[in-house]
């Protein structure tokens, strides 16, 4: 028994909120990396889908030239940023399941009584989802390089792409955690996740340019955060014309909305 386990009767560390956010985000990201290190199978199983999209769908449509691409790009070049964004989306949209799991396992209760503001907890978790999504990006980038897709090798572009995926995944995981705070059950969240993933994907510019969409779909694509993520990725990775600054601003705004919505509901999970 060590007498070093002493007692502190004052709150000690001053509770300035602005210092807690970066610290909590770092902590949750670190825990996510530790979990990934212990179990790498998920990285592999999650790599299957993007591989199919690129190798089967992408190669086929590349050959038949059915989809017009801007800036004289090959279809594979056009598609790869879309698949990167999509694999991040798929990771993030089911992230709310983890928070329900943590609720069922009693871990969430303990997290909620640490000196962590709820919004910092949610922001931390959403960036942790971003870490998982970024691990998928590495897989897709490596695969794209192997099949000879011509992507930017400028380190700034690569870093920027990771940032775009991080923000995208942060928003979609907030969306997922918001739904989790409403439905409170894992199987219901699964159903809703399935229900919204494909519409988000198809109502975006991931598979085809906005210019060939019917008018109503263009409107949906314009409010869809996934479109902004894909646009930013395309601009940075393929050099296509894009509004990268605007894309990041819109993504960041969506993350703020997502954190606010989700943190106002997370208390429901603790009851």
């Amino acid at each position, binding site marked *: 028994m060590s007498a070093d386990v002493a007692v*502190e*009767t004052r709150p000690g560390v001053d*509770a300035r909120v602005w210092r807690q956010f970066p*610290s909590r985000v770092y902590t949750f990201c670190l825990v996510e990396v530790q979990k990934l290190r212990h179990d790498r199978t998920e990285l592999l199983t999650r790599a299957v889908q993007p591989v199919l999209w690129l190798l089967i769908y992408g190669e086929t449509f590349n050959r038949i030239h059915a989809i017009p691409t801007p800036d004289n790009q090959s279809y594979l070049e056009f598609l790869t940023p879309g698949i990167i964004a999509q694999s991040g989306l798929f990771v993030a949209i089911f992230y709310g399941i983890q928070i329900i799991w943590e609720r069922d396992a009693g871990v969430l*209760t303990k997290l909620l009584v640490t*000196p962590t503001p709820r919004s910092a907890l949610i922001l931390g978790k959403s960036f942790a989802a971003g870490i998982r999504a970024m691990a998928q990006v590495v897989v897709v980038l490596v695969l794209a390089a192997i099949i000879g897709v011509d992507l930017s090798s400028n380190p700034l572009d690569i870093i920027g792409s990771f940032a775009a995926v991080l923000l995208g995944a942060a928003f979609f995981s907030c969306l997922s955690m918001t739904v989790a705070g409403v439905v409170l059950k894992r199987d219901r969240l699964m159903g809703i996740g399935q229900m919204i993933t494909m519409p988000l994907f198809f109502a975006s510019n991931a598979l085809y340019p906005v210019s060939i969409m019917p008018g109503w779909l263009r409107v949906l694509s314009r409010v869809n955060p996934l479109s902004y993520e894909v646009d930013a990725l395309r601009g940075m990775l393929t050099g296509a014309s894009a509004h990268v600054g605007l894309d990041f601003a819109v993504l960041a705004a969506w993350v703020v909305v997502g954190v606010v919505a989700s943190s106002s509901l997370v208390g429901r999970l603790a009851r």
Partner: protein
Amino acid sequence: MSEPALRVQGLRHRFGDYAAVDGIDLTVERGEVFGLLGPNGAGKTTTIRVVNTLLPLQEGEVHVLGYDVRRSPMAVRRLLGYVPQQLSIEAALTGRENVGWFARLFDVPRRQRKERVDDALDAMGLGDAANRLAGTYSGGMIRRLELAQALVNRPALLVLDEPTVGLDPVARDGVWRRVEELRQATGMTVLLTTHYMEEADVLCDRVALMHLGHIRAEGTPQTLKDELGPDASLEDVFRRHTGGSLGDDDKGGLRAVRSTRRTAGRVG
């Protein structure tokens, strides 16, 4: 004058029309091990969840070392260590990572972090198992790991909700021994709930008997027993004050079944 570790005045908490806690007063002095004793549904867990800021304070006053849970919830959280009723650790992390996680969430300074994590693990007898995934731990080890998580913050008030429910007798003795060693070494204040009379007898300096949201009696286990006669047990005391038995499970019965099942599922 120093504030008591916990001061509860006129606490009332309702879920809809049902008053789970119906106006209780409670003072836990510093360095004391205080037990809330009662059957499932007595209001023990609700009381604890208001104290640790998990539930909003609806009516009454609650102060932890002088800090108001309503006005300064973050300060209160920094002073508390909490182990919930349900066995709850992150199975995909090692024991050490589980404790390190909470050290960061409680802002333990970087220079002290490793030492504090090691101390907490050693104090709970988990030094050798620290680098194993927590998913491989037995039920008793998980509970001790949770205690280590709660201790890494050096809490002034350690709050334990049914610390040994679902554990076998050996694991239960292990947890009791660690809690006893801990308070001897540190003088830490402990607030625990239990429906095991033996647990209250072994661990607690004072107990309050709770029944249907009210406190029916309060005192040292010995005084309460002496009031009834030489051979009285805490069970007798409880029956005398409430007309019911500690084993009564009519309120919260389903919850008890669920938590036992969860525990069994995890411990496997």
